[in-house]
């Protein structure tokens, strides 16, 4: 099937966003992995900020997943 140039660009940007989503989710999870024990050891330190950043990255990953998936959920 012949795919037009704008469609190819759109496909590439969706795939790119998929990779960004993957990176954000795993970066968020790693930050939580670091932040949770740090918060337990030192509640007044920077660990709270790590957890907040982790939360933001994971939510952005969720948003990225919804954006990349939404257009593929469609009727015939």
């Amino acid at each position: 099937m012949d795919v037009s140039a704008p469609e190819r660009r759109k496909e590439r940007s969706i795939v790119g966003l998929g990779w960004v989503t993957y990176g954000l989710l795993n970066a968020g999870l790693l930050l939580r992995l670091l932040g949770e024990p740090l918060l337990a050891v030192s509640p007044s330190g920077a660990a709270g900020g790590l957890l907040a950043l982790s939360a933001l990255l994971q939510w952005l990953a969720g948003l990225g997943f919804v954006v990349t998936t939404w257009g593929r959920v469609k009727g015939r």
Partner: protein
Amino acid sequence: MPRLSVYLVRTALLHLLVGFGLGGLLLANKGLSFWPALWRLRPAHIELLLVGWTVQLTLGVAYWILPRFRGDRPRGDRRPVWAAYMLLNVGVIALALGPWTARAGELALAGRGAELAAVLLFAWNAWPRVKAAGG
């Protein structure tokens, strides 16, 4: 994908987005302690992700891919699945909002009842479609 599956899966995606948002607020609050009352969002976070996202996505995909019948109604009677879609979401919303109201107990009971009815209605449609090939 049938229209009903589109509704189920897209609504599930919305629940995922809101559920992740609430989870993010809870996690950020754990780190920065900016609003202690935020912990009351925890049941909503769990309900949205467990039932609103996971269960609803499963129902939407199952309605789409389970074996079909021959004839003009390949997926059987759609009405119980539409009712299941409505009841499941009413149930999730009732359970999510319950802790913020004065009638949390009643809303929890009604919400769980709606979710149970939704599952039974979905099974009513899906059960005859679950069969061995050629059976």
